[in-house]
């Protein structure tokens, strides 16, 4: 380890990475187990001339980050389960109006107030379908401290590149981890910013598809004076109910992510070359799964893991291939099977899907996974 290594918690890394990615605005409302992120942001933002505001609830917090982003300032909010639910209507607004921003959800047990201080991966589907209507989704699920830093920066980059709200899905264990780590050199970071219009205001349309599926974005107060609405709109930004325009626009929204899937999907193979049993995992459960794989390998079992660093979109083609090849697939999750349900659809009875679903608030132990590996043999 280099000399510069220092102790970081997961929460601090979200804050640090956000600021390194250029985030200068945080709007939030405290909720366990995400509050430390707010606390770090309240300390760090003024130092770089940024703004922290604590709003009256998560709905308002989500509103502030959309407003700040429209004014040209990269923005973050962080929350947990119940707060994530409250944000959903305005998250839909950010999709519809194509406003870049990052929502960090430190998952806890649900539904409702559920298990405020316990570990869960309860919101994997809420990240995908939490708001009403169809929309593209990018959700990241880091499992290690270094990865929190890396993927938080990526979350900001994705939001700026595709003009969408991006979900950074931590679980309680990941957010509260603390260890000495080295961060990448500032100079090595790749930071993306929204594409600005190249035309003068008279020629600018806020949702102009002439430049591709992601329209260039003018910030407020830069002379472009355009209109932003959550209503279905045409390229000028004004409401329309023309069925063809609305259909085409919804399809474009989905295309923004679907056509760039190869640049977004992100996974890691662990001992997969000869694997007959495959574990699909993400977040902290992937850490347990890794130990289980190591242990099983010691007894000569051919097992490997595919770990999703980005949970939405999933690498469909690779999953389909594995479903055709694996003798069994094990999906450990801290929920009742939110990913397993999806994997089951891909598998379409070609292989056995073994679920491990813990929602009691205690981590899935490597032994729990090991037992299922034995069962799969």
């Amino acid at each position, binding site marked *: 380890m280099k000399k510069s290594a220092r102790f970081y918690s997961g929460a601090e890394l979200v804050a640090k990475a956000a600021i390194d990615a250029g985030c200068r*605005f945080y*709007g939030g409302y405290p909720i366990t187990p995400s509050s430390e992120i707010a606390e770090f942001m309240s300390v760090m933002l003024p*130092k770089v001339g940024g703004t922290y505001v604590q709003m009256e*609830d998560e709905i*308002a917090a989500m509103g502030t980050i959309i407003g700040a982003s429209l004014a040209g300032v990269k923005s973050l909010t962080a929350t947990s389960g119940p707060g994530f639910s409250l944000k959903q209507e305005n998250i839909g607004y950010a999709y519809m109006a194509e406003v870049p921003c990052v929502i960090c959800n430190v998952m806890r047990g649900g539904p409702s107030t559920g298990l405020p201080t316990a570990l869960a991966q309860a919101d994997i589907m809420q990240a995908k379908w939490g708001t009403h209507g169809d929309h593209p989704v990018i959700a990241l699920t880091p499992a290690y401290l270094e990865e929190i830093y890396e993927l938080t920066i990526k979350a900001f980059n994705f939001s700026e590149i595709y003009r969408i709200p991006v979900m950074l899905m931590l679980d309680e264990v990941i957010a509260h981890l603390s260890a000495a780590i080295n961060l990448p050199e500032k100079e090595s970071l790749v930071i993306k910013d929204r594409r600005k219009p190249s035309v003068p205001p008279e020629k600018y349309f806020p949702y102009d598809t002439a430049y591709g599926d992601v329209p260039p974005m003018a910030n*407020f107060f830069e002379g472009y004076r355009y*209109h932003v609405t959550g209503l279905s709109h045409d390229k000028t930004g004004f409401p329309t109910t023309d069925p063809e325009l609305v259909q085409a626009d919804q399809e474009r929204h989905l295309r923004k992510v679907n056509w760039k899937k190869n640049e977004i999907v992100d996974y890691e193979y662990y001992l997969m070359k000869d694997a007959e049993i495959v574990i699909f995992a993400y977040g902290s459960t992937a850490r347990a799964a890794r130990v289980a794989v190591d242990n099983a390998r010691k007894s000569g079992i051919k097992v490997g893991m595919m770990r999703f660093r980005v949970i939405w979109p999933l690498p469909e083609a690779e999953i389909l291939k594995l479903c055709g090849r694996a003798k069994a697939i094990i999906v450990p999750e801290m929920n009742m099977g939110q990913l397993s349900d999806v994997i089951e659809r891909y598998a379409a009875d070609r292989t056995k899907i073994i679920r491990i679903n813990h929602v009691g608030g205690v981590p899935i132990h490597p032994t729990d996974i090991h037992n299922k590996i034995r069962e799969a043999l």
Partner: protein
Amino acid sequence: MAFEYEKYLRMDKIPHLWCPGCGIGIVLKAMLRSVENVGWDKNDISFVSGIGCTSRAPGYIDCNTLHTTHGRALSFATGVKLAKPDKNLVVFSGDGDATAIGGNHFIHACRRNIDMTLVVVNNNVYGMTGGQHSPTTPIGYKTNTTIYGNIDPTFDICLLAKAAGASYVARATVNKGRVLEKYITKGFQNKGFSVIVATANCHTQFGRKNKMSDPISSRKWIESREIPLEKARTMKAAELKDKVITGEFTTDEAETTFWENYNSPVHEYTEAYAKIIEKVQEK
């Protein structure tokens, strides 16, 4: 010389979607004249609204306009303002938007005393959704959801704003567009959170249910209820039941009560935050 509304309007978006004779138009005009009065550059203004008939106004204004979700306009506007504290923020809300679904944001924006102006068009009803009662529908009146007469008590939006900490609060009716203009202008000039309530007619939804389905009779009803603040001060509370007090809800020396003094705004929010940044960066 006639006022050049065209200077501030997106003329290609006209005709607007409001019913002929709707009170919202008068408020919009008063607001545009106020922009001219204070001389703001169109590029430096953001007009923000929620959802409702009133909230459609920004679409017609040639500025940076933001039509948000129902009740949440103030939170979006707070984000814009905090990102660019030197810009001018104006929020346009209906009575339902501002005080029902958005009531929490309303009192907190007042408390923060953040530098922006909220114009509430109070037509005593949910206009856009077809005429259901709102937190300002007077007791006894009919709407589509209070057909036996409303029993749901009302808010006085101005008193609420004052109690919550807004630093400029005023109310005028759409019968007096010039007064409305004066108050909105003062709101723009106030460094802090300003609330201007425009008592307006929605003859289509509210009027229809209460035997005043045309703009004239609806505005006559508004007139019949209006009591200027100076006069109201000489009246008994019981006489003011079912009346609407208009004027500037400032508290002059004589009027200042112990509680108002105790609860007066301490500072404007963005200025206070700028001081934090300064302090932190000095270290």
